[in-house]
């Protein structure tokens, strides 16, 4: 036996029976919702040139991407992200298609570098991109679609959390920070590291922006945090960001989604990528984010076709993990048939629900009965010379 002949590579796994049904169930529910919202599915290659993800300004570190080298020496990566390939398509093959474009995908992304930490290196994602739609209407629809996406999957206890890249940017702009200090500050806000935030802002004293930044990691929760934020800092881009979030909350509430939506103004991940509203989904039973998205108005320009864009991706298996496992089909009937009765046997199998019936591969009737017993079926149907005989077990 070769040492690696029976295990799957680090971070990968086989999905059997109910695990597989659960993943497919989530994908089917999302695909159906996305099609009803006018999105068309696209499939992109599993491998792409490394340059694609450099060009996109992808925030993934290079060690997180799985690399290959093709025959001509070019560096390839296993698709680490679904959005950059879609931006590439919109700027190339679909360059003469009218905007806005609505595209969805259901495909795996590949990551490396999480050895022994129990993380998946293959992540099944299902998501949408709305390319070429500016403004708050598109943001509203996108957040509403995110809420409906988790509802459609059957997640009962979840929250979609909204933030805005502009609020932190406006505050940080007041402080005149160099790149390194900016990144340290952003990291402290993202990590809700209260202690180090105090330390970093120590020298800025009573500056209103510094006072607001000190509180920023606590500005999460219900709509009341928007008012609190406004009382701390209300200038320029910060005001626009808060106005937009307040408007979204009003309209989402009017649509009956107020219990699904909350806010975190300290949501400052991937700031070089996201330009406006950002959001994340949390579900009871999942220890990490199950949905992630936002507005990224600069990405398309890096492929030569400037256009505003917004979208989100669902982590399919993370969502499946918070649902009750699907019931596997109950076996009911085993069909033992003479070869000349094949047509009748197939017709009988087709008349039953999927999984309820299976044909016996055996010639000996006793083996078919034994098979039915092992599988927990309730009866065996014998088809022979036009006669049908049913034996209950």
């Amino acid at each position: 036996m070769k040492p690696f002949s029976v295990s799957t590579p680090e971070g990968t796994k086989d999905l059997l029976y109910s695990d597989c049904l659960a993943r497919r169930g989530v994908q089917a529910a999302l695909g159906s919702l996305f099609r009803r919202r006018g999105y068309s599915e696209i499939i992109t290659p599993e491998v792409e040139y490394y340059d694609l993800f450099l060009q996109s300004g992808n925030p993934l570190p290079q060690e997180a991407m799985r690399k290959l080298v093709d025959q001509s020496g070019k560096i390839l990566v296993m698709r680490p992200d679904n959005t950059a390939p879609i931006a590439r398509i919109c700027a190339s093959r679909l360059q003469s298609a009218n905007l806005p474009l609505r595209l969805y995908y259901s495909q795996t992304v590949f990551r490396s570098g999480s050895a022994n930490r129990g993380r998946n290196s293959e992540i099944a994602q299902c998501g949408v991109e709305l390319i070429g739609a500016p403004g708050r209407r598109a943001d509203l629809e996108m957040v509403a679609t995110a809420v409906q996406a988790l509802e459609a999957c059957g997640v009962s206890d979840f929250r979609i959390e909204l933030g805005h890249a502009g609020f932190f940017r406006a505050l940080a702009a007041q402080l005149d920070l160099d790149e390194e200090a900016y990144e340290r500050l952003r990291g402290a806000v993202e990590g809700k590291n209260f202690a180090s935030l105090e330390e970093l802002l120590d020298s800025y004293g009573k500056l209103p922006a510094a006072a607001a930044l000190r509180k920023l990691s606590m500005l999460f929760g219900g709509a009341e945090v928007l008012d609190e934020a406004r009382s701390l800092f209300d200038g320029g881009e910060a005001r626009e960001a808060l106005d937009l979030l307040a408007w979204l909350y009003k309209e989402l509430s009017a649509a009956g989604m107020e219990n699904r939506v909350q806010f975190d103004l300290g949501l400052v991940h991937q700031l070089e990528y996201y330009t406006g509203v950002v959001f994340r989904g949390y579900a009871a039973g999942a220890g990490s984010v199950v949905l992630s998205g936002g507005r990224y108005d600069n990405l398309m320009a890096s492929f030569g076709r400037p256009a505003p864009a917004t979208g989100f991706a669902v982590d399919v298996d993370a969502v499946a993990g918070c649902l009750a496992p699907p019931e596997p089909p109950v076996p009911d009937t085993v069909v033992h048939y003479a070869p000349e009765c094949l047509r009748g046997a197939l017709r009988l199998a087709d008349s039953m629900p999927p999984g309820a019936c299976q044909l016996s591969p055996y010639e000996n009737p006793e083996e078919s009965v034994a098979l039915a017993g092992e599988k927990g079926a309730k009866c065996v149907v014998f088809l022979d010379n036009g006669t049908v005989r049913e034996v209950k077990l």
Partner: protein
Amino acid sequence: MNRLRIALTKGRLQEESVALFERMGLDCTQVKNPGRRLVHSVSNYPLDIVLAKAPDVVTYVEHGVCDLGIVGKDTILEMGRSFYEVLDLGFGRCRFALAVRDGEDFYGTYKTRRIATKYPAVARAFFADKGMDVSVIKIEGSVELAPLLGLADAIVDLVETGATLRENGLVPIEDIHQISARLIVNTASMKLYKPEILDFVGKCERALEETK
């Protein structure tokens, strides 16, 4: 109220954590008399306590099987993070330092220096910041032994008083990072159970303030 679960780092941090909890008014009878039990509940507060090795505390919190954790900054620096690090608890203080054999001129050579450490990520990041290419070798036990045996030119390790270093003829030449115990929170728990988490964090903060 939703019941929270916290992972404490076994050993010295555990004692200090329990002392902190008692100052917060939590009944820690179970965790102080663990017996064969693995999950210890607090009778007068909705909190369950588990004890784990430091890296496992980070793993449990990252995966969300524990909502909260108390772990040293050393472990956080070494493992990276995808959780909220909300409080510096102030105990378990020590520092990461670079130490060499007494009298050794560590920087005065063009040769690639070899660094022995239990914390390869911390050591690599420290020298990468200096733009210095070094060779890092991971040691599991007493790191002080490596320079004595001639395996390494220096060590990167946790230093509290420096007594162990001195006994082995080593001297700390540079501090890398100050270390203390941190309270960490799973990102999803923070968002889904905000009132419970903030109540606990608030109690912690007040107890820390009072003893300052």
